[in-house]
């Protein structure tokens, strides 16, 4: 278990820079999730920490030691791959013990460690099988077992659940969360799935185009997104964005309006706005509700309703042509075509000076 410290990490392939200077601190025992869209560099970053990719520039420290030029096996890390990377010709036991075998550990000690890992992952009954006889979830378990027996300082997970079906993914997600609680080890987890990020992380690092967009606790990122990208990336359904004009600027607020929206004062969260500029107003679908008579802030025509059981998702067309999404109580019945008044609490809306 250890701290991991990234300082000014950069990666270039020829002239193409894919990681453009990343600083991240990972505390001992923390579960950190790198999340971002495809091509944002999250996997590359993880592979650089693992030592599978060279670090073009910057410093990577694990446990206070600079490890930029150490072999992967010397860094005290263990990695679980998206495609499991378990050896098809070996039994589960041989797979889990692989690292110990090639490092010539004594049999008794090796068996004890392997049995321990098998117990933690509840796969004692699978130990003599071959990978071809295992399901996807079981294979991933073997891969995790192989990581556990190494007693790594840091666990690295590269999209470990992407190849599993939805139901299994949820189970394994919980198991990985539980594993983190049990082992208390530092873990770095890469995913493009914001649900995995939200549920597992102590700290989420949102990446885009090789840069850190925001890092912090999941709910912090959810409630206080630093920019438009993070606001749109986290949360399901994703945040509604309305193009607005800045009408007035106060100390900690900004007043905005648009063709579709009546004038409204929202907190500016320290962001700088200029009078008359076009800005973006973000409203989470959960906070958009049908307004009592005469108190509507915007009018929206119901286009489509999707009943998900726990909530109903409503697509609304508003006056400036934008489509908004509202997530409302499950038993609400709305008729497509209805033109309705909607409202939201300005205190939980977000104003961003940039325009998407």
């Amino acid at each position: 278990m250890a701290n991991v410290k990234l300082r000014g990490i950069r990666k270039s392939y020829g002239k193409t820079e894919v990681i453009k200077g990343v600083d991240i601190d990972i505390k001992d025992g923390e579960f950190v999730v790198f999340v971002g869209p495809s091509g944002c560099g999250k996997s590359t970053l993880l592979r650089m920490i693992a030592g599978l990719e060279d670090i073009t520039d910057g410093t990577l420290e694990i446990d206070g030691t600079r490890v930029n030029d150490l072999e992967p096996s010397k860094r005290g890390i263990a990695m679980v791959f998206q495609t499991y990377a378990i050896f098809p010709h070996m039994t589960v036991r041989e797979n889990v013990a692989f690292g110990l075998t090639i490092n010539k550990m004594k049999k008794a000690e090796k068996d004890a460690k392997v049995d321990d890992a098998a117990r933690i992952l509840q796969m004692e009954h699978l130990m003599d099988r071959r990978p071809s006889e295992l399901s996807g979830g079981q294979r991933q378990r073997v891969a995790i077992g192989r990581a556990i027996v190494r007693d790594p300082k840091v666990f690295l997970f590269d999209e470990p659940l992407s190849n599993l079906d939805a139901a299994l993914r949820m189970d394994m997600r919980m198991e990985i969360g539980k594993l983190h609680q049990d082992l208390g080890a530092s873990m770095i987890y890469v995913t493009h799935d914001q649900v995995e990020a939200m549920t597992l992380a102590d700290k989420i690092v949102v990446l885009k185009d090789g840069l850190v967009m925001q890092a912090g606790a999941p709910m912090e990122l959810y409630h206080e997104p630093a920019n438009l990208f993070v606001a749109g990336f986290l949360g399901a359904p994703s945040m509604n964005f309305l193009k607005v004009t800045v009408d007035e600027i106060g100390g900690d607020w900004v007043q905005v309006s648009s063709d579709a929206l009546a004038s409204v004062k929202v907190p500016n969260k320290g962001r700088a706005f200029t009078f008359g500029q076009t800005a973006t107003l973000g409203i989470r679908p959960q906070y958009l509700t049908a307004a009592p008579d005469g108190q509507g802030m915007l009018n929206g025509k119901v286009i489509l309703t999707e009943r998900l059981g726990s909530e109903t998702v409503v697509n609304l067309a508003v006056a400036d042509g934008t489509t908004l999404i509202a997530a409302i109580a499950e038993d609400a019945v709305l008729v497509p075509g209805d033109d309705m008044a909607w409202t939201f609490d300005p205190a939980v809306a977000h104003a961003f000076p940039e325009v998407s």
Partner: protein
Amino acid sequence: MASKLTTSNRAGWAFALPGFGLILLFIVIPFFFAFYLSLTNQRLVSPNPTEYVGFSNYEKLLSISVLTIEPEVDTAGVVLRDDAGEAQYPRVRSFTRNNPDFPQYDGMREWFRWHWGGTAKVVVATDVVFWKSLRNTLMFVLVVAPVQAALALGLALLVNQKLRGINIYRAIYFMPVVVSIVVVSLLFRFIYDGNDGLLNNILSFLTFGLFEGRDWLGSPDTALGAIKAMSIWQAVGFHMVIWLSGLQTISPTLYEASSIEGASKWQTFRYVTWPGLRNTAVLVIIVITMQAFALFAQIDVMTNGGPLDSTTTLVFQAVERGYGKQDISGAAAISVVLFLIVLSISMLQRYITRAR
């Protein structure tokens, strides 16, 4: 199923017909024809009608025996010795030519002999040239199959690296394959030439003139070895490509996983590469074995089986007898024997390398 195939796939069968027809005409029919001919006394051109002769062709081909000869003794029972002190033995002819006491050896010739406890053990066979060709063929296969397979694997591992211009090396190693074996054989006749051959010149240069030079193809000690070396060189590129395709089916993540576990180069080969090449290995070994058993063109171009039958092979003998001596039935019998040998070796190899 069969009826659907034949009615609804008429066009498909039409397309397949030329291929099937040629295979039938030039492979399937001759194959069964060889079985039939080997049981007759068919000659290439003969005024006499063909007769069924049962297995007598095989008897002539395969009859082999060990003849124990006592040394000649004088009237006092003392072994006669020549000037060098070697015991004198009666001539083998005296047993194999019109000797009513040993009808089983009638018509046989000596292949080779060894001395055992004061007697000479003489291996006699009706068709000594056949046995020599069988021995030469087996020696050729025993050397060429493992050496060529191993060299090809070594080259494949070398050219499987990600280096600039690696395709040039792949092309160079593959080049001899696209050159006809007849052309290669002709060129190597010059290289191996005893008077002013390239090989002699190089060896003489490298040893500062100490190497005297020899006629590589003119000596029974070196002729087959020279042909083995050339054959290995000529086809190694082909098998390199097959190994290469096998190497590229191995998932790169397996290598990454093993590097994280700290596997050395040898351990990576032993635990990742070699098990991943299992099916390729079966293919390469069987293909090389079958090709090696079919050794003909090199012999025909370079030595014609000589000197002293030291390079004659089964296929060369089959062609030589069938068309040179017009003994089609004898040639057919050799072909059938060769077929049975290759079949059983292939089945043995399949059995040894079967998936467990």
